[in-house]
């Protein structure tokens, strides 16, 4: 009877070793960056020149092509962090907490940009930079949660121990995501309701949808590239910390 000594390895087991992960994913980085650059070039051209002005808002409608992808990524990044948090808590996957940690600053940045571009857009169209409306308030709460998570990561000396604790808090904070998603349906005040992802199809003409989707993919690929690079950096940082610790032990 032969005993299976080498169990069949799934891809997420193979990338569990940080060095292996970097070696496997490094070739992905440059294609991602190139794809992002191309999408941005085409998307920005369409946003500025290839799409019509809005009959009411004029040129200010073009803020949408930056605002909507950032707003989408602010929530998508949190979903990525929540899935990584489950990976940390359930499977103790070493790369899950690297992913969770490197996504947090990106999410905070996208959320801040979504709020900022929203304020810039709100002033000419609604006449106010800020309104305590359901979606804006819940997005501001999301920014605070991101900043709290970053502060929590930094408060721990031992990053490996921090990972599981931050994962618990990330999952607790995830209750905010459905609130943001449905805020425009529950409290209809100033922010417009969903107009792209609807059961009965988008309510925009294709001339506006094209640049919106191009920018949407450009920003999503930007996130993927930045996230991957941040994960590589985090792996290197942990390796350096490990080397430093060993050097101190040897010196002592």
């Amino acid at each position, binding site marked *: 009877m032969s005993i299976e000594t080498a169990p069949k390895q799934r891809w997420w087991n193979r990338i569990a070793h940080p060095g292996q992960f970097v070696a496997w994913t490094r070739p992905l980085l440059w294609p991602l960056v190139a794809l992002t650059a191309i999408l941005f070039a085409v998307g920005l051209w369409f946003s500025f020149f290839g799409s019509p002005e809005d009959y009411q808002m004029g040129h200010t409608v073009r803020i949408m092509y930056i605002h909507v992808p950032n707003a989408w990524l602010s929530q998508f990044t949190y979903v990525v962090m929540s899935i990584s948090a489950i990976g940390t*808590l359930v499977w103790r996957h070493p790369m899950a907490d690297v992913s969770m940690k490197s996504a947090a600053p990106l999410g905070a940045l996208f959320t801040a940009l979504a709020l900022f571009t929203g304020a810039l857009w709100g002033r000419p169209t609604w006449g106010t930079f800020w309104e305590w409306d359901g979606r804006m*308030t819940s997005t501001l*709460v999301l920014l*605070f*949660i991101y*900043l*709290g*998570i970053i*502060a*929590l990561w930094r*408060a*721990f000396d031992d990053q490996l*121990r921090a990972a*599981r*604790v*931050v*994962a*618990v*808090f990330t*999952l*607790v*904070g995830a209750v*905010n995501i459905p609130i943001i998603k449905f805020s425009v349906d529950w409290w209809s005040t100033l922010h417009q309701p969903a107009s792209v992802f609807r059961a009965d199809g988008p309510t925009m003409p294709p001339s506006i949808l094209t640049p919106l989707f191009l920018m949407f993919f450009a920003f999503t690929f930007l996130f993927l590239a930045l996230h991957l690079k941040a994960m590589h950096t985090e792996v290197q940082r942990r390796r350096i910390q490990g080397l430093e610790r060993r050097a101190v032990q040897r010196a002592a």
Partner: protein
Amino acid sequence: MRAFWAVLRRDLQLSLRGGGNVLTLVLFFVIVGALVPFAVGPDQVLLATVAPGIVWIAAFLAMLLGLDRLFGPDHDDGTLVLLRQADLPLSATIAAKVMAHWIVSALPLIIASPFLAMLLAMDVPTFWRTFLSLLVGTPALAAFGAVGAAVTVAIRRGGLVAPILIAPLSIPVLIFGVGAIGNPQAGAALLFLAALSLMAVALSPFAAALAISSAED
């Protein structure tokens, strides 16, 4: 269940015998509320409008203040390690501690709230609704506070991080808590507040237990 009551009684005795902690919290609560007329001006009409919000903010801040006593001393002297190894599940222990925390840090504030209501020129019906909304809503604040305290228990400077983590989670409590006072839909807001409290109290001991056992090993 006996172990549950034992933990509850122990926590209550510790905080009541610990000296003026409870009174300090009440004093803080009243002082925060009493500072507002100095900041916004002693206009009776204006004060009466913002009074429910002020009472809620003061209660929130006072409950934050008592938070590092929830797990901190037990973590420092090693009791938390023993509690984790006890027969009672850690989540049940934490539920007992949250209940004790509510009794020593929220209940005195609610009892002291008439004093603040008088300072802020609240009328009697508004006061009773504020009293009710505090009674229904503060368990949620205690529950969220427990999660924040559990997440930061292993950090030396955790006292500063916990409020930052809890504040965003507590916003719905404040919204519905104040909404249950001066609003045409006050009844619905009060029901929402009760639902929030029940859910937070039911789920937070598990999250807090997970955080504590992750931080300790």
